Each structure stands twice: as C-alpha cells, then as structure tokens.
C-alpha cells in the first residue's frame, strides 16, 4: 500500500485465531462476534481509507459488562484490541491489525441521565455527538464540542481524539467539557473516574483518558458538561483578495479581545468547490472568513460593529452581516458542506495541525508554495480562531504514486506547523497518520514518559497497537510486553 509501516502480525495469535474466536463466542451473547472474512472486511479501515487491514474478529457488545468480558478474553489470550466508535477518524485511529480484535462501542447508545440544574448529561459512549445535543434541545441546552462529523461520530471517538469543532474557540474542545468516564481496563476491570461534581482532588485522570486514542482503556460511559443555548447567534462573512490578509484579520480579531464563538476560514479552491455544490452565494475571492458571535441582540450588534471596524482596515472585498435566521443559514451552508463538496472533486487527504494565530499568514503562504512544488492542489478550510488548520490535499487514489506524493506533502505541512511553534494535531489525533512525525514534536524523553504511562494502564501493550508512538521508539516496550507472562 503506502508509506506508513505497520508491524508484522503476531504469527502465534494468527495461528490461534479459531480458539480466540471460539472463546469470544462462548463468553458473549449470540450476534456479538463477527469473524467471517467477508464481514470483517467492512471494518478494515476508518475514514482514512488509504490504510486497510481486516481484523481477526469484530466484537459488538451492548453493555459495559460485555465490553469487559471481551477485554478479559483478549487479555487472557494476549490478543491486541482496537477500539472503534463510528469509524470516522481521519488519522487511522481505528485501523485494525490482522492479529487484533476490534471492539466496537457503537451499540452502547443509551442516554443515562440528564441534569440541567447541575449542567451535565451522562451517556453511553456509542451515542453520536449530535444525538447528545438533540436530546438536550427541548431543555434549551447543548453539548458544545461540534466536530463537522458530529452527525455520525460517537462520544467514544470524541473522547479518544479530544475532538473539537467550530464552536470550540469559545467553549473549548472535548477535554474542557468532559467531567467523568467509566472505562474498561485492558484486564477487563471496570473503573469510574471523575463525575458530575466539580472540583478535582488528586491527579486529573479524566484529563489523561481524554485524547489517549484508545491507548489506555475503552471508554463506555461519559459525563459531559452541557451549556445553555445562547439567546441568539449570528455570523458575518468577510471576503479578502489574499489568503494572508484573511489570516491577518483573524489575528487582529483575537488580539482585540473579542471572543467570537467561531472563526472559520475557507480559501478559493474550497470556495469554488462549495459554490459548484451548494451555491451558497459566496464571493469569488481568495479567502473568506465566517465569524460567529453570540449573546443578546444588542451584544451581537455591538460585536459585529467592532468586527466591521477591524475588517475594514484590511479592505475586504465583501462584508456581509447576517440579520435573520435565513441569512445565517445561508452563510453557514457552504462551510457546513465543505467536506462533502471537496469529496466531489476527488480523493483528498485531510490534515490537521495547529499554528499560533499570528503565524497563520506565513503558514498559508508556505502551504501555497509547497502545493506548487508538489504539483498537488490543496484546499484550506479550517477553524482559524484557534489556529487549527485543515489543509485538504487533493489527489487521485487510482493513480499510482499520487497517494505517496500527497502524504509527503502532508508531512511537510505538519513539520511546518511544528516549526512555526504549532502542533501536529489540533483535533483529529495522531493515529497512524502522524505517528512517525511524533519525534518532530517531542523529544525522546517526552515520548518515554508517555509510553511509561501507557505501560501502567496496559502493561502487555495490547490496546490499539502501532498507533501514536513511532514503531522504532515503542519497539523496546512492545518487546518487553510480549515477554511478560
């Protein structure tokens, strides 16, 4: 396939496949274990389809206890486990290995408790992100982190990847909204961490689980902070004739002390695709910002006025403030369909890195130069307010060599992010996609500490193998774990 290597599957595990499957089937209710090669194939990848490998089996439990049973069997038989939610990861986080058992938590779909007085909701983690907010709609509350994939992605995946979205500029990402979890440890033990009450004494273990990408435990329940819906919210759309000026405008808005709910950026490649797809009526220019502010009518008007003054110093080609709900929908329409519209142009690789907001203009310029050098078109559509970039590299998956070129281009962009003081991932996680770049971001000591922590939770290194830590760096740990009894 392509450039990111996966370890050789454990021949011993493969040889024992029939016994492993039989043990899982014996321990779990009928209809829980999938093992025929025709069927496991559908679980061979997530939304990063360039990397695929059918697992040995797939287990779809319905309760935390069944998850624990499956984990216990896998632990006893020393079989690697790959947790899976909705499989929308763009980083290959849910990619199986041939010697692994996928444990999917998508059947754990109950809303367990809603408490608006104490502002939390407790759910099983197979609930989708959007279903959480839908549940709260009538009470006038919502769950703030809103990945573009919120219709489909599950709370489990959100916690594992510490996902974010357009609204996170104001409300924070998953980790800022996660209060407690129920987890199944690698051994099959069930543990509760945190809970609905504020105030944490001792180590912040919930914080440790959030963003751990299925390396430490399987999360089956979560207590999430919920927030009241604002009185109102309205976006403005600002068009610029250069990407750098748009980037500059983002910096100036943030510096002014305003805190919009969202600042979203779309460049011309993306604008063209979106116009062709949904005819959102966006201006024909180099870059567009969508800035959303919320509050009472008067507060909204005041904030929009301040944004207008900031933008006007930079000579925008268009400044359009929404006055009605319809106009707001029209402004958001194109942004919300951006990924779909890009999908219609062909295959894409969606990257995810962060840069300091002040470095946006420089980074955008460099990405443009790299695009020319690699001969691959790139579209930029991202959460600009917190410098979370999502360059989409367009390529043709059926053309030999193009994926590899796109991947090299992507790696260069992520290195650029780190060089300007940013980070490899804003919200999609490391998975396999950025695994080998971790040494660019972290020193050997940093990584050693992270791996020590993993060893505490998962001494046999069975959970989500070959992700996050570069293979050569994790080799000693995996080797040692393989020999432990």
């Amino acid at each position, binding site marked *: 396939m392509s450039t990111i290597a996966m370890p050789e599957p454990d021949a011993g595990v493969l040889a024992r496949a029939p016994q492993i499957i039989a043990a899982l089937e014996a321990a779990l209710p009928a209809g829980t274990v*999938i093992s*025929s090669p*025709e*069927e496991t*194939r*559908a*679980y061979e*990848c*997530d*939304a990063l*389809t*360039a990397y695929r490998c059918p697992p040995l089996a797939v287990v*779809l439990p*319905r309760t935390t206890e069944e998850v624990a049973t499956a984990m216990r069997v896998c632990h006893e038989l020393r079989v690697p486990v790959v947790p899976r939610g*909705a*499989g*929308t990861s763009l980083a290959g986080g849910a990619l199986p290995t041939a010697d692994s058992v996928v444990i*999917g938590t*998508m*059947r754990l*779909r109950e809303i367990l408790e809603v408490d608006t007085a104490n502002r939390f909701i407790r759910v099983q983690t*197979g609930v*989708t992100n*959007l279903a959480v907010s839908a549940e709260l709609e009538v009470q006038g509350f919502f769950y703030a982190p809103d990945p573009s*994939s919120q*219709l*489909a*992605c599950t709370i489990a995946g959100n916690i594992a990847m510490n996902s974010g979205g357009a609204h996170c500029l104001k409300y924070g990402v998953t980790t800022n909204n996660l209060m407690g979890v129920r987890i199944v440890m690698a051994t099959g033990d069930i543990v509760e961490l945190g809970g609905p009450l504020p105030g944490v004494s001792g180590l912040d273990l919930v914080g440790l689980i959030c963003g751990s990408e299925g390396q430490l435990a399987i999360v089956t329940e979560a207590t999430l902070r919920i927030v009241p819906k604002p009185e109102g919210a309205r976006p403005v759309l600002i068009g610029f004739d250069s990407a750098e000026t748009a980037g500059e405008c983002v910096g100036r808005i943030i510096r002014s002390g305003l805190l919009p709910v969202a600042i979203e950026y779309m460049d011309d490649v993306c604008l063209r695709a979106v116009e062709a797809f949904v005819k959102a009526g966006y201006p024909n220019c180099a870059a567009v910002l969508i800035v959303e502010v919320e509050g009472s009518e008067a507060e909204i008007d005041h904030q929009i006025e301040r944004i207008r003054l900031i933008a006007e110093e930079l000579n925008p080609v268009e400044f359009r403030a929404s006055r009605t709900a319809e106009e707001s929908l029209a402004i958001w329409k194109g942004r919300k*369909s951006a*990924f*779909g*519209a890009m*999908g*219609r142009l062909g*295959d*894409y690789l969606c990257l995810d890195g962060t840069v300091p907001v002040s470095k946006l203009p420089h980074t955008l310029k460099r990405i443009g130069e790299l695009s020319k050098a690699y001969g691959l078109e790139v579209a930029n559509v991202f959460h600009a307010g917190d410098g979370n970039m999502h360059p989409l590299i367009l390529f043709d*998956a*059926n053309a030999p060599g193009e994926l590899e070129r796109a991947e090299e281009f992507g790696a260069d962009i992520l290195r650029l992010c780190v060089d300007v003081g940013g980070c490899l991932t804003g919200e999609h996680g490391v998975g396999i996609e950025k695994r080998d770049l971790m040494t660019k971001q972290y020193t050997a000591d940093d990584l050693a500490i992270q791996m020590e922590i993993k060893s505490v939770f998962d001494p046999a290194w069975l959970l989500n193998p070959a992700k996050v830590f570069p293979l050569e760096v994790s080799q000693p740990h995996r080797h040692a774990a393989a020999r432990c009894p």
Partner: protein
Amino acid sequence: MQTNFTDTQLADPATRRSNEILRSCVHCGFCTATCPTYKVLGDELDSPRGRIYLIKDMLENNKVPDERTVTHIDRCLSCLSCMTTCPSGVHYMHLIDHAREYIEKTYKRRWDERALRWLLAKILPYPGRFRLALIGARLARPFRKLLPDARLRAMLEMAPDFIPPASENDRPQSFSAIGARRKRVALLIGCAQRALNTDINDATIRLLRRHGCEVVIPKGIGCCGALTHHMGKVEESHAMAAANVRAIVHELDGEGLDAVVINTSGCGTTVKDYAHLLRDHPIADDAARVAALAKDVTEIMADLGLNDPFHAEPLRVAYHAACSLQHGQQIRSAPKDLLRAAGFEVVEPRDSHICCGSAGTYNLMQPAISSELKDRKLATIEATRPQVISAGNIGCMMQISSATEIPLVHTVELLDWATGGPKPRSIANAVTVKMRELPACRC
C-alpha cells in the same frame, strides 16, 4: 475510495456506473447515522457504508456472494435516507440496484426463499391476482399461528379487513377537467394500491379535475416495475416499465401530456428513474421522456395551487414522510404546505427521516426489523397526538395503520376533502376523531 476493477470489468456499463459511484464515496461514515437498519442493529455491515463495502468486494472480485453478504444487502430497505445524508453525492440507489441484479443472477437462494420471491413477483404487481390473494389471506388469518415461517405470518397479518371491489375509475378512459382545462395529465393507477385501496385514485381524480386537469388513464398502464426491480428481477421489471412507457408515450404523441401523475411515491421514485432503468433498452429515449414528465401528485398540486379550501374540519394531522417521497424524490415541504393551505394543523414526528419499515415487500421479507421500525415510528407519531395521520404512499399507510387506531389517509384524500370532496372513509369510520391524550413520550 480507491477501486480495483480491470479494464474488462469496466467494459460492462453497469460495472462502470458502479465504479463511478464507489469512487465518489470518501468513506466518511456520515450516512451510517441516518440509516434505519444501522440504528436498529448497530453493525456497520447493516449500514450504507458497510453495504457499499460488501458490494465493492463482491463486484471487484467477481464473487459469487456468500449468504452473509446477501443477508446484509437484503436487509437494506432502499429507503435512500443515506442519499439525503451523503455530503459527497454518492448515488447509492443505482449501486444497490446493481447489487441486487448481480445477486439475483449469481446467487442461489434457498428453495423456500425462492418460492416466496417467485410468489410475490407473480402476485403483487397484478391487482386481480393480488385481490384474490388478499381475500384468501383474510380467510386464512385465524390459522396464522400454525405457520412456521414469520414471513408467511406477516403476509397474512397484512391482509386488511376491508378489501374493496375493483374501481370503475381505474379502467382506461379520460376524465374531463372541471372548468377550463389547465393541464392534461396521465395517472399511473398503480398495482397493489388498486387492490388495497381504491379511494386514493378516486380522490386523486376528483382533486385533479377540480383543479383544471383532464385526467387520462392510458390503455395498457400497470405496475411500474418497482416491486420486481427491488428483488433484482430485471426481466420482469424492465418489461413492466417498458409497457408503461409505451402506454404513456401513446398518449404523449397523441393528444399530448403535461405530466404523468403518481400518487404512490414508491412508484414515483422508480418512474422518475426510468431513463436509467431502461438505458440499454430500445425505447431508452421514450423512457427518458416519460421520466422527465413524472410528478408526484403533491408536486403537481403545488404547481397548480389549491383552490377554495377549508371545506374540511381543521384536524390535527401528523404528516408521515414516506421515504420514497422525502429521500427518493427529495419532496419534503410540498405535502405539508398543501395540507396547511387546506386548513389542517400539521405536526411532524421526531426522526421523521427514518423509515417506517414498510419499504415495498420489506415488511414481508424482513418482519423482525420491519416491525421494530414500525413500533418506533408509531411511538413518535403518537407522541404528536394527532387526530389523523396522512402519508403519500400506500405501503406506509398499510404498515402504520396495522398497529394504530388513529385513522390513516392519503394526503390527496385530505386535499380532496378540503376542496369539496367527500370525507375520507377512514375518518368517517372512526368512531370519534378526538384529541388523543397520551402521556408525554420521550422517544
């Protein structure tokens, strides 16, 4: 997604089309969230993305599908909710149609399954045979517990208490417009619907005439082919579609037609796709002309505008969106707007985008999933406390009415009533149409 077809495989037009569709899927998984079977079963293999994968594997490798693959594909309702959701415009309908055809050609089903499919294909599309079968089923219903097969039981349970005699209005003829003629339209009188409920066509004819349409029942018109098409039985479905095309084109080239009106949205989706269905047929061009003229009855009514409404009682109507209307034809607001314009209070159940489980012959072939979806649908509908339920598709009407006391009518029956027609039979028959005081429901 990357695909792996050889040039020889791509020489086949059907495979070429499927390759195009597969290439447009980016495997984002959005569609899983709104797929009814995934909601019920929670297995990616019973989701659009999983089925796309199974189909890809089957077609790329020229595989004779195994039983499991066939089961997952059979479980698809063809509700097309996934197409509404997909941001990348993946044409799932053409892909699953191809898969069904492929399975029908390459896979040998068990004898009882084959017999059942053969029976359905030989009965449902023919109103005369179907009427007889319904009468027989009604007689046999008391003995249904003796049947070993849940599917056969489902069939007997489906037979309604009242089976109407054939309607004179469904014979080939022409009904003149009342007042000045604004349009000349052909009415697709359908097949199973005609045997189950003759009020719908009667109401449609009255409604259209009252709004200035001359309504033609073309000679030779019959089943649109959808029922057999969804079973992958190409020969039968193409023959039926072609017969309809000929019947309609005869009128089109004669006195002319402004539209082909369809009041069973399941059929509408298929007729609108005739250009694709018959693309390799000698009458492909005519098929495209017919497809271009096909309109759901609410589309044409929205176009004509409702005249002189408010003759009916202002009932609280729960509008059930048939999947073939909301997803297959992307018609969402027209029926609701018309009902409101007609003076009714319109309410919509939560999760209105999710199928009721009827889906053509699905309720007969997959009774377990179907009845789970029916229960979910009813719970959400009843939570809106309606006095009447309205829908634009006979399949949904049968499915939902089989489990509730609330009267169920076709949208045109309400529109007809509001503009001067008779009170719909099921409303008149209901002892009292009262506000149902149901406890607040959290579904």
